[in-house]
């Protein structure tokens, strides 16, 4: 049965929260260990805590507030491996003044980190099912921890499919890792780009066109989708067309998050707060909001 937020809101993943024993508004200091350029406008930062004793457990799908002193704070999903609690990995796209300031960070520079916040992708609910991971553009970054988690417990899941679409071949994130994933026999990987020159030997076309190429059991699958809202909307529709029920499709919303703890109200959507109750939502809870204007 489809639910809407106005009538009833129970987010099945909302039980995972940030630790309550620390002030959620107080950032911890982290130093930049390494900066890796992924594409012309995307960088991955490897951060280690300035205080050696801090470990940083997180669940796939959670995000941190990264504070660049003198510039501001932005919510960024964690893109690293959940089993590595000693360092934080964030993949950032340059879209505004704070992320542009981040680009200038060098090894040893210090920034503030609040988090982790938000709920998780349904990696535990997906046990015993096929898993369809659909990523668009920078949306692959928040889904990379899901892939790490699934592959670390590979025998617990059925088929695992990764469908990734981005703008051009030059915009493909984590290229080397994608190549490694493609060479695995226990994972199906399809990549497409929206436009390309003749030198590109892969697929051209939107990510929704990859769904019919993938093999999965629609009624026993969990789909996790992350990317621009329009992409998620059309992907969810296509998944439904292929028989995946809407309550088995999960999307990640990332609208206007400011405080990350539900105080400021910037990310309020109906009766819910994206930062506190999300960012991962079941599509059947969220779908009416995806097409609603002026919210």
């Amino acid at each position, binding site marked *: 049965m489809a639910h809407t937020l106005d009538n009833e809101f129970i987010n099945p993943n909302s039980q995972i929260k940030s630790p309550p024993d620390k002030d959620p508004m107080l950032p911890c200091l982290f130093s930049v260990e390494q900066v890796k350029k992924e594409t012309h406008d995307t960088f991955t930062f490897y951060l280690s805590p300035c205080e050696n004793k801090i470990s940083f457990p997180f669940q796939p799908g959670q995000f941190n507030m990264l504070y660049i002193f003198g510039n501001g704070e932005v919510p960024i999903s964690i893109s690293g491996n959940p089993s590595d609690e000693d360092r934080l990995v964030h993949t950032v796209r340059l879209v505004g003044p704070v992320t542009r300031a981040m680009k200038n960070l060098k090894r040893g520079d210090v920034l503030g980190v609040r988090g982790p916040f938000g709920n998780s992708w349904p990696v535990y609910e997906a046990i015993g099912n096929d898993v369809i991971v659909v990523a668009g553009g920078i949306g692959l970054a928040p889904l990379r921890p899901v892939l790490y988690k699934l592959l670390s417990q590979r025998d617990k899941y059925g088929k695992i499919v990764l469908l990734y*679409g981005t*703008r051009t071949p030059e915009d493909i994130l984590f290229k080397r890792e994608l190549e490694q994933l493609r060479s695995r026999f226990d994972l199906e990987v399809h990549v497409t780009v929206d436009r390309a*020159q003749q030198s590109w*030997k892969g697929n051209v076309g939107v990510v929704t*066109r990859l769904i019919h190429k993938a093999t999965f059991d629609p009624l026993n699958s969990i789909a996790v989708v992350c*990317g621009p809202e329009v992409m998620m909307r059309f992907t969810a529709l296509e998944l439904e067309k292929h028989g995946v029920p809407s309550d088995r499709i999960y999307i990640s919303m990332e609208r206007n998050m400011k405080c990350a703890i539900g105080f400021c109200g910037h990310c309020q959507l109906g009766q819910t707060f994206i930062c506190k109750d999300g960012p991962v939502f079941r599509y059947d809870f969220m779908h009416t909001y995806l097409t609603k204007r002026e919210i």
Partner: protein
Amino acid sequence: MENLEKILAEHPFLQGLESHYLDLIVGCASNVKFDAGQFIFHEGEEANQFYVIRNGKVALEIFSPERGAIEIDTLEEGDVLGWSWLIPPYHWRFDARAVELTRAIALDGKCLRNKCEEDHDLGYQLLKRFAHIIEQRLQSTRLQLLDVYGTHS
């Protein structure tokens, strides 16, 4: 021909088609093979066939003098290539190039066009199926035009 009949009968594009129509279509079918890099058709040429791709990969391209060949879509196993044979003036609107060794079933569109004129039920069945493909490709093109991965998204 038995093999072709089986392949075509099982293809989603022709599923549910009455057997006498299927026989007629099989009569217009032949196996074809394209090497990697070989053009299947060029923009502006007369469009007299369409193809059901059995395996391989085909790039649909537009050539721009400034930017070279721009790939706009990729078709693979199970996809149907080409509908210009059905719509006047029956000329291809894009280039189609095999990206890798590609095997397909070619269907004689010119012959089918005439059959459709004679038998409008067949024409409706084929148009209905092509309308579905055209709708899917149109939706994809609209999404591509939105440039959802641009910095504004």
